[in-house]
């Protein structure tokens, strides 16, 4: 009996071991809840989903990352001569420190694009569909390269997604010319393969968006080369003119206007729904309970802790279309109220006229030491007195949504296209009155400012009261076109790039000033403690923190440094000059 039992046990055991041992599937476990390379690239849906992920990431849509974060949207103004943050900006002050890693040297989205571009052909869908998706990706790639080139100049051009053994990892930088030509090729291909939009105000990339991107990039590259002495500027200026011309000719877009110059400009930036807005080429949507931003609140509370520079305020024309030095309407800057009177209506749609808008009923602008200055949240300090109003709307409901606000964000405006067209033509010397009338003067008309007349402008050149901001040009027309651009696109992240491409970095060294301070208006403010003034009574926001002023080194600061660690990892990379 017991012998038998024993045998039974042994047989049972062996059977178990054998059964387990034979089953090879037991050790083969594959992911069941995610997509792997082998089962991808089949359908149109897969391509769409891949491309979707680009939208919130692309740094080229500056300030429009996960949320419509104002501080990012305005970073190009904060580090320029437009906006003055309470704590000075390290880039604008020439105090940017070379980082060990990061510092804008990011290649994640280039890889993301190349990964797609090397594989999308596998998908079993029509060429039309997959090429349209590839074209979208190429626009993202172009925008990303545009960022890199603006920041670093020469950068390696990559047309494949790399692996750990790719020789491209250690390649030296490619010339700016090669990179930008490659970007152009990509953009032209994209423009060819993208569908045309049904109408204005798209939320995704279409042919017109690509054209606008091309115009923007070409103007930047054309002027950059011209003023920094690099060959090939004419080609890019011509392409900028052509691309903007195509958009103008397409007739899809026009400036938004209701015939009310006091409000129309502001309405574009204070709109809860930009769908169908004729001025919008591309925008970002926000909807209740889905995606939100805190823009209106941020502006209302002045949480950006910055104000406009005197220099920006002064560049606004008077309502007659003449600069403040020339116009008889200018009332001087004895008080801030005087200063803002009879000016280009865009001025008070961009910055607060005291005691109007969100300041209704309050004594004055938010400068340090005034009652208004510190809310209990110790934010809201306006160091110059000129408080931001753009992106604000008079809407308590939106204000109370806080971070869940639904203000839509314009990403590419038709106004920029008009400015590109005018500037490119002027740089090429082909801007005539007709061209100005269908570009700059459309902007002036919407704003209710006197027209730009070629004949008149040329006469200012010799007027001692006419001040040109720019040292590198000797053309009043170009000066006025740049003025128009600075004013129209104020606080839209363009100013720093503009100074760089015009080679006007020295403008950053001009003493940063705020409004003229009137003690009787601000009885609580203690000069020498709360604020500091220059001899003429203008506020000097940085007299304490930057006693020696801001520094701009012409031979160094037009480009950013490559992070030190990258130079060690790839000995073929050479640091930008001066760093």
């Amino acid at each position, binding site marked *: 009996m017991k012998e038998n039992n024993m045998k039974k046990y042994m047989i049972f055991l062996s059977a178990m*071991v054998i059964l*387990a041992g034979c089953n090879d599937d*037991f*050790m*083969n*476990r*594959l*992911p069941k*809840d*995610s*997509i792997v*390379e082998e089962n991808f690239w089949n359908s149109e849906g*897969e391509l769409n*989903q*891949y491309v*979707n*992920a680009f*939208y*919130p990431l692309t740094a080229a849509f500056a300030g429009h990352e996960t949320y419509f974060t104002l501080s990012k949207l305005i970073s190009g103004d904060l580090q320029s001569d437009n906006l003055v943050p*309470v704590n000075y900006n390290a880039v604008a002050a020439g*105090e940017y*420190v070379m980082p*060990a890693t990061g510092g804008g040297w*990011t*290649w*994640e*989205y280039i*890889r*993301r694009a190349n990964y797609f571009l090397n594989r999308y052909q596998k998908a079993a869908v029509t060429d039309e569909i997959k090429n349209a998706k590839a074209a979208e990706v190429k626009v993202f790639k172009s925008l990303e390269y545009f960022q890199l080139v603006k920041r670093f100049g020469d950068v*390696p051009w990559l047309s494949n997604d*790399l692996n*750990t053994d*790719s020789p491209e*990892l250690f390649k030296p930088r490619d010339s700016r010319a090669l990179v930008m030509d490659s970007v152009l090729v990509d953009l032209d291909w994209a423009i060819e393969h993208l569908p045309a939009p049904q109408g204005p105000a798209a939320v*995704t990339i279409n042919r017109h968006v690509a054209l606008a991107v091309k115009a923007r990039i070409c103007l930047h590259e054309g002027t950059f080369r011209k003023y920094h002495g690099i060959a090939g500027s004419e080609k890019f200026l011509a392409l900028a003119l052509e691309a903007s011309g195509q958009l103008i000719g397409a007739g899809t877009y026009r400036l938004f206007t209701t015939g009310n110059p006091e409000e129309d400009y502001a309405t574009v930036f204070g709109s809860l729904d930009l769908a169908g807005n004729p001025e919008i080429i591309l925008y970002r949507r926000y*909807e209740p*309970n*889905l*995606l939100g931003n805190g823009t209106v609140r941020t502006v209302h509370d002045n949480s950006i802790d910055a104000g406009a520079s005197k220099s920006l305020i002064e560049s606004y024309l008077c309502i007659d279309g003449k600069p403040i030095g020339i116009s008889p309407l200018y009332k001087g800057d004895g008080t801030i109220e005087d200063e803002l009177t009879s000016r280009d209506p865009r001025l008070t749609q961009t910055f607060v006229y005291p005691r109007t808008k969100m*300041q209704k009923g*309050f*004594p004055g602008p938010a400068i340090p*030491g005034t009652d208004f200055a*510190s*809310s*209990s*949240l*110790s934010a809201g300090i306006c160091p110059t007195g000129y408080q931001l109003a753009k992106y604000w709307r008079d809407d308590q409901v939106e204000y*109370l949504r*806080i*971070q869940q606000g639904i203000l839509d964000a314009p990403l590419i405006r038709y106004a920029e296209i008009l400015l590109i067209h005018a500037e490119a033509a002027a740089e090429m010397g082909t801007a005539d009155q007709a061209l100005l009338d269908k570009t700059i003067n459309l902007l002036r008309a919407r704003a209710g400012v006197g027209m730009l007349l070629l004949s008149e402008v040329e006469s200012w050149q010799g007027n001692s009261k006419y001040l040109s901001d720019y040292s590198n040009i000797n053309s009043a027309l170009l000066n006025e076109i740049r003025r128009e651009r600075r004013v129209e696109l104020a606080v839209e992240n363009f100013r720093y790039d503009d100074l760089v491409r015009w080679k006007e970095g020295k403008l950053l060294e001009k003493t940063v000033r705020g409004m003229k301070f009137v003690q009787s208006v601000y009885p609580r403010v203690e000069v020498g*403690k709360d604020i500091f003034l220059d001899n003429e009574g203008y506020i000097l926001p940085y007299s*304490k*923190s930057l*006693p020696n002023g801001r520094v701009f080194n012409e031979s160094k600061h037009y480009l950013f440094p490559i992070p*030190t*660690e990258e130079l*060690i*990892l*790839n000995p073929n990379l050479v640091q930008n000059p001066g760093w």
Partner: protein
Amino acid sequence: MKKKVRFLTKPLDYAYIMRLSSVSLAFVCIATLSVFAVNTSDAQKVLDRRINVTVEGIVLKEGLNQIARAASVKFSYTHDVALSKERIHVVARELTLKEVLENALAGLPFGFEAVNDKILIRYEPEKRRQIRTDPAHKVTASGQPSAERPVKGRVVDHNGEVLPGVNVQIKGTLKGTVTDVSGDFQLNVPEEQAVLVFSFVGFEPLERTLAGETELLIELKAAFTHLDEVVVIGYGTQKKVNLTGAVDQVSGNELQNRPITNVSRGLQGLIPNLNITNRGGSPNASGGLNLRGTTSINGGGPLVLVDNVQMDIDLLNPDDIESITVLKDAASAAIYGARGAFGVILVTLKQGAKDRKPVINYTGGMEFNKPTYLPDLLNSWEYMGATNLARQRRYGTVVYSDEQLGWAKAHFDDPANNPSYHVQPNGSIFWHANVNNFEELLQNWAPAVNHSVNINGGNKAVSYFASVGSRRQEGMFRDATDVLKRYNLLVNISAKVSDRLRVGFKTAYTNKNYNEPHRYAGKGSSWWEQMTRGVPQILFPIRTPADAPIPDAPTEHFYNFLHSGSRTVTSTEVGRYSIDAELDLIKGLKLKGDFNYQTTHVDFKDEQKEFGFIRDRWEYQYNQTTPSYIRKASDKTDYFAANAYLTYDGSVKEKHFFTGLLGFNQEWSRATGFNVIGNNLVTNSVPVLSLVTGEVIPSDSEQEWAIRGLFARLSYSYKEKYLLELNSRYDGTSRFPKDRRFQFFPSVSAGWRISEESFMTWSEPVVNDLKLRFSYGRLGNQNLANSYPYITRFGVVNPVQYLFDQGFALGLNPPGLVSPDLTWEKASTTNFGLDLVVWKNWTIAFDWYSRKTSDMLVAGEKLPAVLGVNPPDRNAAELKTRGWEFSLRYANQTNWGLSYSVAGVLSDYLSKITKFDNNPNKLWGNYYEGQTLGEIWGYETVGFFQTQQDIDNAPSHAQIAGVARQPGDILYADLNNDGVITWGDNTVTNPGDKRIIGNSTPRYQFGFTGNVSWKGMDVRLFFQGIGKRDVFPKGNFYWGQISSAGAVGTREVFYNSWTEENRDAYYPVYKQDASYNIQEQTKYLQSAAYLRLKNLSVGYTLPQTLTQKVALDRVRIFFSGENLAEWSGLRGNFDPEVVLSEEGQAGTFGQFYPLQRTLSFGLQLSF
């Protein structure tokens, strides 16, 4: 019963219904278990009947009949019994039937067994054979007994506690008995001079010559050296003297009666180089387990097996643990192959005792918890003044006007008559209340209640252990606090099915529920971090004042977010079902097997309710509370483990001893989960997914892994003098591709018991045992977090944070990269050990080891950023950890009954990177070759700039921060004399002016235990600490505004910072955003060395004479305190043990759940 309930609840005093009901639940359980116990031991009960009978030398059958009548039971017997001519002789007065039969049949070839209510007498020829070889028994066996007399007695230990289960034997005979549960025995001894031998595990054997006494009180002396102690090892047990690897074992007693939330915390300081990291004091926090220092760059801790199956040790009820064994070196752990690379912890749960009357034990306690340390934060006006000062120094401006400061001071001094807010001209409210968050939010003593009941017993065939335990612990908050509840159930049954086969069944169930306040994004995300914020946490009152436009409404103060009613509940259920069997094949050869199924179910529910609060306007705001949502997640893991193995035990000529083991193991696990978020609750009161109006976003997951291995052990011992052991495992894992899936991991260990050598006889009076050990082994590590490390997957973004024409959409991220030659990480350990017992009472052990972890999967080989993705993991690094551990134990007892013991453990380790290809330039942001782990790079502090002239004369500090320095800022030393202070290339070769200034590895970790007991009193003291450790303080709590504008900070830093008047201050000038002054540097490097009174327990066992009157065998009351006191040089009011939130990283001081001091009062009952 009723009386007892009242007695128990009295110290609780808190009339929490929860607690009362859990007490009654415990008693219901006792009752149930008692019934259960009685039912299963009918047979036992029969044998326990006490009878009076006199049988004087009559024939067996007749004699048995007489006994049967006296006991009113039926005997059934075989033919052999009826025909036997043997005569029996027994005189019994109040003896149990069992004892009567044992005496009557002693020396006869018959045995007995109770079957249900009958007694079976059967023929057992082996018994006679034994007896025949024993000449002393001839008299009895011949049926002509010499005169005998009954002797009875009781065996106790030095405390007077009774000892059940002690062997009592008449010397030179096989005749004997065992003491019962009251420590009593009764035995018939021959009239002539007899010697009784008492023996019991853990006590020194005692011989007692009888000189006519009939009643004895025997006191056994505890044995202070455990040469015959048996230690649990992988798939078996081993006598401690025969161990060749580095193995330590602690008894479950070390954990019991201590107010520890979980087992891992309780193990701290008990075993040298079992390093426990406390990660804060949340009731739900588990201690990090580590054996012998840094294991791998990728982390990796010891494998924890509870009765052979992997399990979270913190889900156990400490009272259920019999022992915990730690296998430290590769040779001991080798049998666990690919999972044991970094040591193995074997937890053995309690089992039933054989042949024993059921014993019921109850342990219960009430605990009170209080944070060990809280930072001494600035109050409202101090904070506002500090803010102004800090801002003015940095930016030249102030934040608060003098008037505002005045309002705050007035309210602070006289809150009743001064408002806590002012409305500013622009309509915004300026709050200037003063909330001391620690006082307002924390309860003084957070209570916890513990109950544990078990029953333990068995007969010859079946033994059982069953327990239920419950614990309820409250967190630190006064209201709406987090609460942990844990319930444990364990049933462990072992049955001898036949002579050859034993089968065991085990069910273990744990239910843990942690219910905490929901963490609103940006508000409650870290409660402890929030407390560093001046606005709104200090300046906002909790509710608006009664006379405000919106009276008594919640403000933005985070108290209101904690108390919003939104909760996050995690409940974990683990069910374990096991069968094991053991079959004797032939002599010495056994086949063992077990099959285990463990199901883990984690249910998660997180709700965010919308509510309005007042911030800076008189209107309700909802921003951080919207959208309301409900998130539910459910994860289920099925885990199967099967083991089958043959063991062999044999010897040749009593000189050569062999054991062998050959086995097969396979395990597989499948985890599936769902996670659904529904936005916009229809109503706050019913937060369910079916009642939402917003988006519903589901996600799910499914993962599997499997391992399979063959293992073998061969050990050989020559006269227990020369010991050799070979362990190996051939292991495979699903985590690697097919062609690289299996690996062979061998190990060898040897021991030499020098004290057994003849040439050592001279040392015998001193040296009782001396053993040298050596081991070497190599193990693989497959415990990677990722189940599919060799497969790249697309990432899913759901939804993409961008609104397309159709709304939200799904997005896909491209897959990352995988190294093509991915393979096993390996760990090999060399170990030298020494075990020594001297002067009987001193036990000493020392081990030195060196562990090399090679082929470490390195996360992120540094490659140029143009790669555009994280570089893939590669097996590219090697780490060497060297360390040692020492333990010492001394135990003794005085003649007057005081017994005492002291034990100390001390250990140390240090790890070095010996190979790291991916960082040839030795950037210190990454690992680099030659790096000692834990090292802190920093500047050398010269002191403060006292004057502008100092600044002008000093080397430029601009690279650290391009900010003009002011007096009171830190002057760093120009170590490389280049005239500027820099960090060079951030490399070891060009560190600029940085150097290694310290090391955060905890060195010389120690534990020190003292036990004293005397006459029912027992006292235990347990100290624990770290001998050396550097930390660099970081974070808002410590540095306040220097670290971050708006942080409250401590008085420690604010009042000890540099000013014109206080130029010798310790801290730099207090100003905002001056992180350049608080770079890692020599001056502010702190020592986190500490000595902590981890536990103090005092217990008193009531005299049995007293307790037996109420039918209790044992009553012990105790007090136990945890983390009672500490000594440390750490500055500021921070707990030295948990200054680092992450291991090896200088963490943010104080920004986590504080560790707690615990006072516990408890009661233990046995009956």
